[in-house]
């Protein structure tokens, strides 16, 4: 616990952000801020350390164990740092029916990490996750906040290659059925490829 003092508090130099988050909720619902606060830390530091747990607890007048309890419930807060590029491969049934097992194996081979692991340089980490809500455009890989959909073999290689250059392509947002838009919009979209299509092919 002694070393905790040496880390400057995360929200110390972000008073506006902190206030904005706290102000979202009614006065009797201050505790609701725990998830957004955890997320700010996770996003900036790629994990939530003990020191941050204690800090968030102090802000919200909770016991650190309560914050820990919330944090451990969810799969997107991590106790250990994830990579700069955190690849989350959906492995649930619709994605599995579109080859997500082979896709995941391929990523393991190419990135040299197994699910749950981060490489020594802190560059790549891999996580097998459950349904991401992109089942009609399976298989899907989420890289940090962005979805890459209908990830074929060639697309997977293009994605890895781009991430190695720290230059992620625009997310491949695929659509099917009425989600693709009315026919006239679809025709326009055919004429002018959607974001990211160029890199994808």
């Amino acid at each position, binding site marked *: 616990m002694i070393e905790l003092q040496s880390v400057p508090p995360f929200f110390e130099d972000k008073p506006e952000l902190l206030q904005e988050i706290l102000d979202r909720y009614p006065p009797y619902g201050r505790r609701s801020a725990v998830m957004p606060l955890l997320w700010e830390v996770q996003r900036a530091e790629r994990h939530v350390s003990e020191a941050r747990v204690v800090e968030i607890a102090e802000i919200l007048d909770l016991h650190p164990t309560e914050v820990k309890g919330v944090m451990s419930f*969810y*799969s997107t807060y991590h106790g250990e740092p994830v990579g700069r590029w955190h690849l989350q491969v959906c492995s649930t*049934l619709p994605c599995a029916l579109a080859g997500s097992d082979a896709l995941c194996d391929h990523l393991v081979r190419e990135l040299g990490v197994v699910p749950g692991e981060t490489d020594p340089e802190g560059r790549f980490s891999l996580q097998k996750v*459950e*349904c991401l809500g992109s089942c009609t455009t399976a298989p899907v890989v989420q890289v940090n906040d962005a979805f890459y959909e209908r990830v074929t073999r060639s697309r997977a290689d293009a994605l890895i290659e781009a991430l190695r250059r720290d230059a992620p392509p625009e997310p491949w947002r695929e659509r099917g*059925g009425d*989600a693709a838009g*009315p026919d006239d919009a679809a025709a326009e979209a055919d004429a002018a490829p959607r974001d990211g299509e160029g890199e994808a092919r």
Partner: protein
Amino acid sequence: MNDVATSADPTQERITRRSDPRFEVTLYRHVGVPGAQRLAYYREHGGYEAAAKALRTDPGELVRTVQESGLRGRGGAGFPAGLKWSFMPPDDGRDRFIVCNADESEPGSCKDRYLMEDDPHQLIEGMMIAGHAIGATRGVIYVRGEYYLAYERLRDAIDEARAEGILGPDALGTGVAFDLILHRGAGAYICGEETALMNSFEGLRANPRLKPPFPAQAGVYGRPTTINNVTTLASVVHIVRKGADWFSRMGTDDSKGIHHLQLSGAIRKPGVYEIPMGIPYREAIYELGGGPDGPAKAFIPGGTSCPLFPFDDAHLDLPVEYAAVAKAGSMLGTGALIVIPEDQCIVDAMYNVTRFYAHESCGKCTPCREGVAHWLPLLFRKLLEGQGTMEDVDLIEELSGKIRGTAFCPLADACVWPVQTSLAHFRHEYEHLARHQAPLHPRKDRWKA
């Protein structure tokens, strides 16, 4: 079963075919159109006219309109929306909440995501109307953490709406106060269960709560709350705009209006399809989805939490209708239709399903924590790894039977329903594994080049 093909009164013939010329894609009308997420676009297409009308209407009348429309909840359970709204207690001066369940995590489902990404104002408008109907001045949209784009689009849309006075103390200049809280989840399926969602929103671990009290009595922060799914709330906009009759003219007596099928798995044209309720599954799978992309043996009608159907004429001829699907032994659920190919080992597929629920079990109650989160996937693994026996097959069956109906919330049932039906229809595949220590359909690489 309702005879949906022939409506009783020919003068008022219902729309039960997507190909019916009177049917128009409505909720998804602007999905997929670049720029549709902006307020200017939304307003050009009649946006917020329904809310302007609704906020000047007596709340009781709004509730009646939604009841007359026959709208049922699109989050899975299909509870009548207007009836749910009518459960809110009389105003006692406390804050009241309308909550939008945008946690969409039922495997196979993605209809809410596109509505939020491409038409966030439609959802905001639906929340304003629902909020006014139940007397709530605050709304909460709980969006799953992975839907980052949806979150950004909603956040920007809420900012636009506030800047224009659409949201705020004098919403749309009607004198009615209404504002929204946008809250993100962080990856936990159980947060879709309404009381777990409320705990999660309050900053607690997302364990489901005991009911009663129901949300209308004690919901968010113990205050009167109504919770509805994204698609339910978006539907309300059009019911107010076009009238309850417009909505109830689609579908069957039991299931009225519009639904969204999300076709995934072994299908040629996967995607989200807006349909009038009552269309036969055959039309959905073959005419909209282009048919299965090879021989198929089963389909799950409403997300992995539902019993599966064999891919046969009797089931393909069923209408997309809550009652008919329930009578045939499954559930309409979220409308997430997953087609399972003939050459897919059903035991492997069900292992995938049990693994999902094992991962998502909140650990609160014993049948689910021990049965779903531990023993069921373990038994499946044993079989799949060539170590299983016929006793293990029986054990899966027995265990599933004991889990069903004994757990605290429906998550555990959701896990065993597909398992039990897979045993009912494809037991030979389980037995093949137990006898030969190898699957009838070996794993194959389905990943496309």
